[in-house]
């Protein structure tokens, strides 16, 4: 994209962020997600008494399967429903810049959510000496996982003018993407087709869980980063394609 298109994408991001907070969905979803995450974590923290944030990061995949689609469901569905899609498509910006702008706005909401968990880090530091490197790595993983699911949500939103359909399809696709790597799912799939190792294959190559878990172990691997970034770019490219097709 050209410098002009990037500037346009930032303008779009600013408008979309404002629109997200004009509707109550972003506030409600973000506050509910923060309350759910921190309360479940704090409960376990006081029972276990360990200065470790891993239990919080382990909650996030399940939470993100619902929270990220809630953030992204409006991005195109609302424009398709209210016909503002035509307004977007006649602005002097390429569709890719508008997709990027809307995506950046949802990324800002994700960053806001993650920033909302920082008091937990402050509490751990105040209480003792937690492994800050591992915590930073966990945040990087959570950000990349959330960003990938937001890109998937953007794609689902560009496919339907109905926000509920966009939410449900994104939640289902996110669930599949994440939980194909869950141990029990892998065991069931491996057991269903013995010899093919279908579960192991899907977990290794398609699921977001193994690369995410590598971040929780404290390893910032380039391969895992590339996996998330590549998948997010793929979904954004599909979103752009879906937006172009909606014009016809």
């Amino acid at each position, binding site marked *: 994209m050209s410098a*002009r298109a990037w500037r346009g994408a930032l303008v779009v991001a600013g408008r979309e962020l404002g*629109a997200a907070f*004009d509707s109550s969905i972003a506030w409600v979803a973000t506050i509910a997600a923060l309350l759910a995450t921190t309360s479940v974590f704090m409960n376990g923290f006081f029972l276990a008494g360990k200065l470790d944030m891993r239990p919080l990061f382990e909650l996030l995949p399940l939470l993100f399967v619902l929270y990220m689609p809630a953030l992204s469901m409006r991005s195109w569905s609302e424009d398709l429903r209210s016909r503002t899609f*035509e307004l977007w498509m*006649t*602005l*002097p910006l*390429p569709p890719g810049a508008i997709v990027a702008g809307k995506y950046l706005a949802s990324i800002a909401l994700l960053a806001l959510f993650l920033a909302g968990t920082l008091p937990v880090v402050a509490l751990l530091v105040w209480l003792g000496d937690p492994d800050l490197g591992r915590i930073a790595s966990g945040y990087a993983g959570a950000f990349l996982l959330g960003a990938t699911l937001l890109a998937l949500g953007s794609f689902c939103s560009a496919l339907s003018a109905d926000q509920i359909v966009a939410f449900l399809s994104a939640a289902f696709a996110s669930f599949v993407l994440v939980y194909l790597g869950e141990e029990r799912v892998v065991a069931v799939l491996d057991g269903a087709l013995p010899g093919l190792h279908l579960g192991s294959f899907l977990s290794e190559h398609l699921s977001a869980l193994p690369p995410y878990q590598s971040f929780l172990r404290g390893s910032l691997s380039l391969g895992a980063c590339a996996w998330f970034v590549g998948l997010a770019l793929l979904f954004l490219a599909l979103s752009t394609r879906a937006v172009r097709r909606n014009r*016809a």
Partner: protein
Amino acid sequence: MIQVEHVTRRFGELVAVDDVTFSIGPGEIVGFLGPNGAGKSTLLRMLATYLEPCAGTLRIAGLDARTQALAVREKIGYLPEHNPLFEAMRSRRFLDFLGRVRGLTREERARRIGWCSERLGLAAVLDRPIRECSKGYRQRIGLAGALLHDPPVLLLDEPTHGLDPLQVVAFREFLHEIAQGRAVLFSSHILAEVATISSRLLVVQRGSLILDGQVPELAARAKQEHTDLEGLVVHAIRERGGRVELA
């Protein structure tokens, strides 16, 4: 300014625009008339680069609407049918957003928003959310959005929809005033409105251009045929198999 050559647009089996050719020069206000579903909005959407033609070429200010769509969008001010607006935004922020997307500086945006506000009587609603504005105000906000970047070509789809009779008169005067050096193409299905606002008339029926002429010339032709402009247009539509009825 606007050149349409042998343009055709199909939606599956339906031919919405069928081999249409015309051109519009600077300073011309052209009314685009036809019954509902005649293909007016489809043609305007193609000129606005929202839709691509299946055949033919559209040029705006010398730029090809298919291959230079972004450059064309810089040259046009477009008011779509149904006037879609970002409901939750305040009018001033909405116009400011459009100005920023179009690359206007802060000073230019302030100047142009001030001009649009003054000329279109928007001062009372500039700091109000668009969803709280009346239909007439909403239409004027949409028009302000189309004019904000001072485009040489204006494409207006049913611009008087939602305006009361006095506002229609004011709109007509306003359009004549701003048409200097611009090409204006606006659609309507109300003949009296088109005849009073525009200098030239294009009539479409079932996607085909069936009448194209200066309003005084068409009025003279109607007189020769012992009818009026309305009779001439209705006759042309009926000749092409169109039904003129209340249904």
